[in-house]
């Protein structure tokens, strides 16, 4: 009988693994660095310990790899935790962070920004804003047509997602095939190379606050996974938890897409891994899924930037890895869902 769930040990272990992965990731790349150098530079720059290292090593670590690694951690954590929250709330293991059309909306915002030649900061804002707009439209459909039904909310998300995908196609159709079209396409494939320290300040704050908010509702959200009427009879204010969950998850997804473009499969697959490790209770899943998502995207991005001389699009890699992985997962746990 497990009265003390063994997750705290696993969570700490995963934290250590994540830290090691981060140090290794700093060393990977065309300009290779030893873990010792990386630790010396980070210890000095972050904590002020030791003499540090100057010159090119420091520039590579602090200016090139730090923003990219930070972006991978943030985006991975945001997508997988919002995916886990949506899956729990919708009581549907096949739901992903794109469920409300947020990714399509954010993609549209970015496409239009590229089309009219906006600078990076404005592109991020547009993308974030259109992602939120998509979610608001989906929720409005559910409220007006479905009177708060979860199924109608999912359908609303499908409709809004399809609409924004059509608008993305329109933007691509209108784009200049020599200049803006490749740029839009590349953006939509997902890439972390655009991240700079400056551009990550606000996103990291948004994602941090949203993670805390999800942590605050971790238990009522777990109870909601057993049914609406039951949750209500157990004292859960369903409407409030829905509102909080949708808001936090949507903000995180829109932020992640605005940093990195459209990266599918992370928010669908990683929550299942976490559920596999610590069970379906969201209170136990959340720390696990956040760290697993961060570690997963970090590793995939390491592959993306080191496997070939090109910077491979991240969205393609996550799908190529995620699809067979998901089949394996279905084979193992699928009978329970369907």
């Amino acid at each position, binding site marked *: 009988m497990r*009265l003390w769930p063994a997750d705290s040990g696993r969570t700490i272990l995963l934290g250590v693994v994540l830290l090691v992965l981060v140090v290794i990731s700093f060393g990977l790349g065309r300009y290779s660095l030893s873990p010792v150098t990386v630790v010396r530079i980070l210890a000095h720059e972050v904590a002020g310990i030791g003499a540090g290292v100057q010159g090119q090593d420091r520039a590579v670590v602090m200016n090139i790899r730090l923003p990219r690694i930070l972006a991978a951690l943030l985006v991975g954590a945001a997508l997988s935790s919002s995916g886990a929250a949506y899956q729990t709330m919708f*009581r549907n293991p096949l739901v992903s962070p794109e469920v409300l059309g947020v990714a399509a909306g954010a993609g549209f915002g970015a496409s239009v920004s590229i089309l009219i030649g906006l600078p990076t900061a404005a592109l991020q804002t547009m993308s974030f804003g259109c992602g939120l707009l998509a979610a608001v439209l989906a929720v409005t459909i559910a409220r007006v047509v479905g009177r708060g039904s979860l199924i109608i909310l999912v359908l609303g998300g499908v409709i809004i997602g399809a609409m924004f995908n059509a608008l993305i196609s329109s933007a691509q159709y209108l784009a200049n095939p020599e200049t803006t079209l490749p740029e839009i396409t590349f953006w939509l494939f997902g890439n972390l190379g655009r991240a700079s320290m400056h551009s990550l300040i606000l996103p990291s704050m948004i994602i941090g606050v949203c993670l805390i908010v999800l942590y605050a509702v971790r238990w009522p959200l777990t*109870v909601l996974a*057993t049914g609406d009427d*039951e949750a209500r*009879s157990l004292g*859960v204010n369903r409407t409030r938890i829905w509102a909080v969950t949708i808001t936090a998850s949507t903000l995180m997804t829109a932020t992640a897409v605005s940093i990195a473009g459209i990266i599918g499969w992370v928010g669908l697959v990683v929550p299942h891994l976490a559920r596999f490790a610590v*069970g*379906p209770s969201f209170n136990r899943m959340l720390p696990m899924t956040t760290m697993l998502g961060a570690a997963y995207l970090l590793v995939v991005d390491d592959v993306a930037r080191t496997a070939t001389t090109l910077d491979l699009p991240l969205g393609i890699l996550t799908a190529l890895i995620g699809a067979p992985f998901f089949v394996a997962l279905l084979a193992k746990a699928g009978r329970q869902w369907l």
Partner: protein
Amino acid sequence: MALTSETTPEAAAGTPPEAARGARAKAGGPAIPRVQLDDLTFTYPRGGHRLTGVTLTVEESEVCCLLGPNGAGKTTLLKCLLGLLRPRRGTVQISGHDVVALSARELARLVAYVPQSASTPFPFTALDIAVMGRTPHLGALASPSPADRRGALEQLDRLGVARLADRSFAQLSGGERQLVLLARALVQQAPVLILDEPTAALDYGNEVRILQVVTELAQDDHSVIMTSHQPSHALTYSDRAVLMKDGQVVANGHPDEVVTGESLSSLYGVPVHVTGVDLPTLDGSREVRTCVPIPARLAPGQNG
């Protein structure tokens, strides 16, 4: 299932739950009924009346069984009790508190709900499900502690299903699930238990076991309100039978007086005969009433 041996009335009475505290606390004051429905009327937005002028009182330690054909308003009545539906007119009071005025959390401390069945696509264990009963007692930002899980395990044990604690809830049999849901309701420590057709999906043995547990809980100061499609449940296990038809209470009282051949025949529109059976007991025998449908080939005359 070694249920009966582990949950005899004596054993259950030996461990009074905190649920009884409400009853004890108000023992000195004027008697406030545990559950009081007064002129309850409910209308669905697009439909006609589903409940009309329902007045009903259920005391502590009482099992109240709602009978009636499909669409009579039994489930609607339960939903009003659970605060899931807002009455259009009239009041629902639990221990003197108006249900409409209570928050979900406050209401959950007074009324626990055992649904017909629970379905979730996620592999929650039986203990995960049972510990959810602690929800209305947890702090706003808290999640259950090991002590909460221990408490949930005790309630599973009380119903004889502690061995299922680590099993996946979805893979349990219907009877086992019902017991786990009942354990969750006990963890909730609410004085009123609401059961919506608790035996609908169970085989005969589990049906008898669940109803036995329910009557034992009532002796433990719970007030139980349940719906059933089996009039014999009301006759054998309840202290009060309420017959409903078209959203109205057509009879309300002691089962032996209310559940008769005529009343059942008119309630369900089929001929039914109610008769007494002598059950051997420790001190001689006791008459228990039960009902039998009258097959058409045996019916006297055309309309039974």
